[in-house]
């Protein structure tokens, strides 16, 4: 099987879905001739033409609104937002419109749009090219929110998202796009990874770590360090934040008795709070220690200077330290 990067997996999913269904089309800033600023859509316009690989004006609300209007007409739009940081003008369309179309019309209309956006930091992107926006979208019923970590899942989940009959916010951690150690063998051709299923990527017995995106990889590295020190850590890749696979989370906590959530979005109001609450409500009796969250600091954005950015980002050393504390509780 060929070895692919995250970016190649995303691109392959787009190619295959556009070949499979002529209603699938891609729109966004620089997605056509340029192939996207991250090259996720490279080559698409050459194969599918300008109508189906559409360079839009720099107008995020229109990118979302146009996608929604086309979806209502039976198209399957994949709207790219160049950076998750710039998705905010489209939030009204995504939350007030796409997420509610089915519910507000009592099932008469649906809105199958995929809103793709690169998110996350650690790339010296400063505070406007590094944001993690998942919690803001995950709080809205009607939306599905997908945050894969591995190339295999990127391809299978993106294909599932495009075929899903409801709107999906598909978040791609930009640091993982070409990260050498995150390459993975993935099958050529069609396969699906269903939305809403977490994946235990490393089994363990002493504590459970829940993460996604780049932080999943950092957590895995930290878990291996702990393993070498004799502490067995289970690592769960959430993959989808909404619908959330509560069962896999609770089963893991019931097994290990200790829970940690890692995300790089800032702590307060972050998605980790929701997982902690679910564990507190539904697995309290199994807990041997308080739930621990490792997250970005509560500052308004990720600073640019390298020492500040490093301070912001959870990394394997920080995560490993937190694991040791939690294991020792």
């Amino acid at each position, binding site marked *: 099987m060929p070895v692919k990067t995250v970016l190649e997996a995303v691109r392959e999913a787009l190619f295959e879905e556009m070949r499979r269904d002529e209603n699938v089309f891609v729109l966004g800033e620089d997605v056509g001739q340029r192939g996207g600023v991250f090259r996720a859509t490279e080559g698409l316009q050459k194969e599918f033409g300008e109508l189906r690989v559409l360079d839009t004006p720099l107008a995020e609300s229109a990118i979302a609104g146009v996608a929604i209007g*086309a979806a209502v007409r039976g198209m399957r739009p994949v709207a790219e937002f160049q950076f998750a940081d710039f998705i905010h003008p489209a939030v009204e*369309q995504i939350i007030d419109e796409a997420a509610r179309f089915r519910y*507000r019309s009592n099932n*008469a209309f*649906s809105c199958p749009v995929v809103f793709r956006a690169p998110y996350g930091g650690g790339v010296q992107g400063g505070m406007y090219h590094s944001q993690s926006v998942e919690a803001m979208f995950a709080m809205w019923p009607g939306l599905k929110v997908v945050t894969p970590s591995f190339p295999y899942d990127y391809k299978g989940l993106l294909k599932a998202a495009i075929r899903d009959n409801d709107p999906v916010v598909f978040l791609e951690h930009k640091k993982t796009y070409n990260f050498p150690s995150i390459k993975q063998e993935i099958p050529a051709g069609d396969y699906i990874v269903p939305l809403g299923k977490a994946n235990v990527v490393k089994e363990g017995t002493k504590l459970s770590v829940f993460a996604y995106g780049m932080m999943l990889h950092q957590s895995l590295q930290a878990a291996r360090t702990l393993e070498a020190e004799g502490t067995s850590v289970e690592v769960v890749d959430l993959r989808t934040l909404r619908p959330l696979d509560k069962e896999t989370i609770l089963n893991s906590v019931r097994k290990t008795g200790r829970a940690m959530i890692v995300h790089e979005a800032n702590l307060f109001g972050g998605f980790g709070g929701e997982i902690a609450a679910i564990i507190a409500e539904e697995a309290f009796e199994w807990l041997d220690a308080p739930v621990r969250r490792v997250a970005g600091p509560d500052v308004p954005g990720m600073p640019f200077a390298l020492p500040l950015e490093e301070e912001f980002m959870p990394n394997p050393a920080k995560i490993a330290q937190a694991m040791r504390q939690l294991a020792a509780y």
Partner: protein
Amino acid sequence: MRSTNETAAKDRSNIPPKSEAVAPQVIGPQGVANEATAPEATASAAPRWQELGLSKNDLREMYYNLLIARTLDERIWLLNRQGKTAFVISCAGQEATQVGFAKALQVGHDIVFPYYRSLALTLAMGMTPTEVMLHQLSKAEDPSSGGRQMPSHFGLARLNMVSVSSPVATQLTQAAGSGYASKVKGDDKVTYTFVGDGGTSKGDFHEALNFASIHSLPVVFVVENNGYAISVPVTKQMHIKNIADRAVAYGMPGVVVDGNDLLEVYRVAREATERARRGEGPTLVEAKTYRYRPHSSSDDDRAYRTKEEVDEWRHKDPISRFERYLEEQGLITKEAEQSVRTRAKQAVDEAQRYAEAAPNPTPDTIMRYVYAEEGQQ
């Protein structure tokens, strides 16, 4: 005719228009204003309605659509005063604009993104008074939302009338997207979208018109300029006289039409439709009109406009005006008018009777349709 730029420079305090009739004008993409061909101004002996290709039956149907909308609207206010419905948002005064457009579009073929003041449009397209009343009273059978949305948040799949939300102008970029879908699919459907003057201040207005024009999409943008965004008059919303003047900036035609002149609205709507259907691109239509009622049942318009102003517009009522026209043309008698009014009242009575007796949504349905259910699209 003055150029639109001169118009704007000389007079930006003339909105809402008081007594002066609105001169129809067509603004070309290059910003050149051309005199529109008003049927009365031509030498032809044929009456205007015949020139427009309308039959007597068409005129009767349009007259009924005006009346049913007004009758239903007034009944809904009455129900609100009786405590039977919590919220009203009204189209009274704006019926001619909506009925004119409904007549120009192919119901069930073309696509419509309405707004919350589109009652007359909705009825003229074929949503029945009973369906509207079920929606107004938030009953389980409400075909727009099953009682989930506030009243006047229309939507009806069989009419290709897309569900409305409360944030203004969000429908405009969606309409552009629908137009784009037509282009990709290669069909000849025209997409219409309706918005108030207030909605034109949002960035979505710019983004939608710009997008539609870049791709020459078959979209007709209709602004129902009723003079106010709740309490804020258009003079405080913009620094130009005509919203349609903005079309120049997008490279599309902008047309100002007297929104209380049903036949003129129909003529403009048909031209915009034909242009879209021919693949020549979008049009911005601004219908100058007025709402008689407060913004909604939660508003008190005495705080921002005078009774005299409202009365002045009531004297220019689009329904009375069309009635007079039909009388002048010898197409209707006072007796026939009365019979149409009776028919409208009976339809509203029946709608109210049915809807009041219809069951409410049951609490156990609250979790339905957050997402597609098993086996659904």
